[in-house]
């Protein structure tokens, strides 16, 4: 830890230590990953972002309904794939920085600002912060959609997907994208792309979240498609319709004849 405070920048000695341990056969604890399908598309008036809701820890599903579309600013949202802790913290950090920036400037945040903050941070950590993001928003220059990779590179695209289900979702986008989509078409295309990831990728699952951002505001459709519904749900308490059980025999006892009711002192619970 000696290098960090004096020289500035990131000290990689702990990374060397981890590599040394791995070489010796010590397995470091697994982390919750979001094996994921996230996608975004620019339509005529704005951006539609979509994500699945499954969070995995190894081969177990850790969270069946997690939120992968993170708030960055009132007009900017970011989907995150990769290590869940990294995506949540890096987007939270940039959201805080942008809020302070808005107080300082008094103006609406720009999407490129969020993109620049994210890519600067991720590049500084050389890919060790495993966050693959789809950043979308609308500012005074219009709608923007960027992908940010864990090593810090970015792409500016009209449609993009990230995560383990990205190829499945991209297949749907490549078949369905055209210039100047309407809002309904864009929502439908993103939902279909996320559903393609959910159905065809083991790391993605559960439900579809959508977030539509236009210059007039944000519509966050949490669980826009709830694909997790069970076919049969048990009612609690269980109610059986009268007549559904055949009565074989009926016997009625008058208990008062065999039981004596005695009033008594309450038990002493102190001892």
């Amino acid at each position, binding site marked *: 830890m000696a290098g960090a405070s004096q020289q500035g920048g990131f000290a990689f000695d702990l990374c060397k230590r981890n590599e040394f341990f791995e070489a010796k056969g010590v397995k470091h604890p697994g982390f919750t990953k979001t094996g994921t399908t996230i996608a975004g598309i*620019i339509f005529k008036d704005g951006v539609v972002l979509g994500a699945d809701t499954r969070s995995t820890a190894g081969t177990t599903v850790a969270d069946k309904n997690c939120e992968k579309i993170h708030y960055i600013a009132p007009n900017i949202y970011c989907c995150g794939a990769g290590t869940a802790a990294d995506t949540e913290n890096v987007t939270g950090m940039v959201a805080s920085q942008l809020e302070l920036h808005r107080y300082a400037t008094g103006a609406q945040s720009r999407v*490129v600002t969020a993109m620049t903050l994210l890519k600067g941070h991720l590049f500084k950590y050389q890919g060790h912060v495993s966050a693959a993001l789809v950043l979308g928003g609308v500012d005074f220059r219009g709608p923007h959609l960027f992908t940010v990779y864990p090593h810090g590179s970015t792409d500016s695209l009209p449609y993009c997907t990230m995560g383990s289900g990205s*190829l499945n979702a991209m*297949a749907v986008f490549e*078949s369905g994208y*055209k*210039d100047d989509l309407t809002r309904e078409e864009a929502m439908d295309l993103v939902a279909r792309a996320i559903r393609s990831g959910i159905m*065809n990728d083991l790391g993605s699952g559960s439900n579809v979240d959508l977030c539509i951002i236009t210059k007039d505001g944000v519509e966050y459709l949490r669980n826009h498609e709830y694909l997790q519904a069970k076919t049969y749900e048990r009612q609690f308490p269980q109610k059986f319709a009268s007549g559904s059980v055949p009565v074989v025999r009926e016997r009625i006892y008058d208990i008062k004849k065999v039981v004596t009711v005695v009033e008594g002192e309450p038990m002493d619970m102190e001892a």
Partner: protein
Amino acid sequence: MQPRPQSHSAALGPGCTGPSLANPTPLAFDQQRQVAQAPSCGAEAFAVDPAALANGQPRKHTTYPYVTGTSVLGITYKDGVLLASDTLGAYGSTKRYKSFDRLRKVNESCIVGAGGELSDFQYIMRLLEELSDDDFCMDDGHTLKPAEVHSYLCRVLYNRRNKMDPLWNSLVVGGFHAGKPFLGTVGMQGTNYTDAHVATGFGNHLARPLMREHHRPDMSEDEATALLHQCLKVCYYRDKNSINKFTIAKVSAEGVTISEPFALETEWRYKLFENPAANAAGAW
């Protein structure tokens, strides 16, 4: 009379050439093959790495492919089966052979498509040709059914995998027999299954979701062709080792037709692709 060429050794199993009564030699007792680098399929040993010829070195078999084909797609429709692939034999990242037929006919009711090492595919076609030639010479009206071809290829690939010398291919077998379409796939480890639509390689990630969404068993040939074109287009957009030159093979009650190579219309000029850094200095 000379013995006819045999692609199988009864002792070593399907897919391995050698004297038909060869004893499979355990590694420790190498009587016939003194050279460490002799391949188990019975071919002549050839020196590749002089250092590895030293005694005590383990036998080395196929460790990675050289000239490769990418995905093969297959779907069944109402009257038959369609297979599709591009015509590229890539040498690593180089697009070296641009007219390689990766879809081949086995007999009038069966076609095979392959991705992976193309020399191994040519060997597999030789095995299948020898079987078809045997059928022809027998002249009893029977030919290999598509399910039989599929089963045979599973055994060949699994046997070679057990010898730690795999045929580095992902195969798709399509056929039409007794009025019913057949479509199956075999991997290089011998993993195999049959389904209404299959894909190998990148096609699994890019084409399979579209097939699951749009495929119906009673599709017409035009609908099936349109779906395959859509899948081929997406595979060309997103697979690095592919070219815009495809063939489609059809098996139906009328027999086998393999189309001439064709190209698909691609769209590269969406408005937002141009000048991506317009609003974002430093982005691309």
